[in-house]
């Protein structure tokens, strides 16, 4: 099981069709084993139940690794540098959080830290920790806990919203000051794209099925 053979369905604990309940309407049904690229839809409400995404583990590993690299760059370099008169200010995520704390707004700072730093880091770090060893059929210790954790963090990762906020701020400041884009901004763009690609890379059902296989007790 070292390399996922193209065209095949992902490995499962049982070879027979799997019983699933639709998350939207709870209709109990069996899904066939899906060939790569195929998807199963609920027979009652038509909602997608699961999809065998092509090269799922490779995508999840590669994009989450790339996202982590972009994350480091996005933290290390400022998004924007603003020159206004003789004063130069730089914007990084940590700067934004510390300024807010200094201004007496710890709650807003907490929101920034949570939504743009902690949640994306947990999401991408967790996915890499789980998906990379799964390529070799292994599960690292605590993989189940890590998967649960990053799935719960998923809706709270809001970097794409932050990027939109940056664009709006630029429009607001454009007339007041001279603004230069920093390396961090391009890294943020890459991070947003890679995060989306990594999460779309693998179906949740597939990830759990593979984890179950990797964790099964060996006789």
């Amino acid at each position, binding site marked *: 099981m070292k390399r996922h053979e193209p065209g095949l369905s992902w490995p499962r604990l049982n070879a027979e069709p799997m*019983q*699933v*309940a639709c*998350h*939207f*309407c*709870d*209709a*109990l049904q069996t899904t066939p084993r899906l060939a790569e690229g195929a998807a199963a839809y*609920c*027979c*009652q*409400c*038509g*909602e997608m139940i*699961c999809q065998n995404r092509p090269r799922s583990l490779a995508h999840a590993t590669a994009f989450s690794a790339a996202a982590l690299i972009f994350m480091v760059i996005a933290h290390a370099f400022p998004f*924007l540098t*603003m020159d*206004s*008169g003789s*004063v130069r*200010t730089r*914007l990084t995520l940590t*700067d*934004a959080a510390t*300024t*807010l704390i200094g*201004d007496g*707004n710890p*709650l*807003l700072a907490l*929101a*920034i830290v949570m*939504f*743009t730093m902690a949640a994306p880091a947990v999401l991408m770090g967790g996915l890499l920790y789980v998906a990379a060893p799964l390529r070799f059929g292994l599960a690292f210790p605590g993989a*189940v806990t890590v*998967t*649960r954790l990053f*799935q*719960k963090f998923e*809706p709270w990762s*809001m970097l794409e*919203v*932050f990027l*939109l*906020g*940056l664009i*709006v*701020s630029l*429009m*607001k*400041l454009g*007339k*007041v000051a001279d603004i230069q884009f920093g390396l961090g901004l391009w890294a943020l763009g890459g991070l947003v794209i890679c995060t989306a690609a990594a999460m779309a890379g693998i179906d*949740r*059902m597939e990830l*759990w099925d593979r*984890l*179950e296989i990797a964790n099964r007790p060996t006789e």
Partner: protein
Amino acid sequence: MSEETEPFEARPHTAAAQGLASCHLCGKVSPVTEEFCPRCSSKLHLRKPNSLQRTWAFLLAAVMFYFPANLLPIMTVDGLGGPKSDTILSGVGTFWEMKAYPVAIVIFTASVLIPILKVIALVTLCLAARGRTSASPQKLARLYRLTELLGRWSMVDVFVVAILVCLVQLGALMSVTPGPAAVSFAAVVILTMFSAMSFDPRLLWDRLERNPTPPSDSP
């Protein structure tokens, strides 16, 4: 609060009718008597516990925060012309006067329209789960998915404030301080997100049993 699930009549062919619960997190179907998912050890429920009560509670709290979020200033700009407070709506107005129509529309949609529509959508869904509307479950499910998808984008204004506060610290010349509405607004977004997460779309289908109208054919 009791841990009991709200009473519902299970339709045939649903997992719940056969005492099977699909795990909220990993999707594995197991008997609800097992209490914890054998695969990811999350707590098993036939339906999300107290789904409607929780949805209503979060929704009510969100509506309460909605008023300070829109009426109080979201940020104060201390410039040469003296301090100037901006509410969300006056910020939209400024962009409109600057002829920055796309930004004005984005901010208006994300900060004013989406929260209102989200509250209306969740109220509709809660009423529908009680059988008070005649809309088809398919349409309501689509509404639910849209609600979950769009909710996070409302956070954009909070990020704009954070970015501006960090960038504009030009000492005596100009400074930006976050207003009380910023925290309220973040609370609205977070609470509506929790509200949407607490809602169980399967309740929309459960009422079909009580309501004799036949389900329309799925696409």
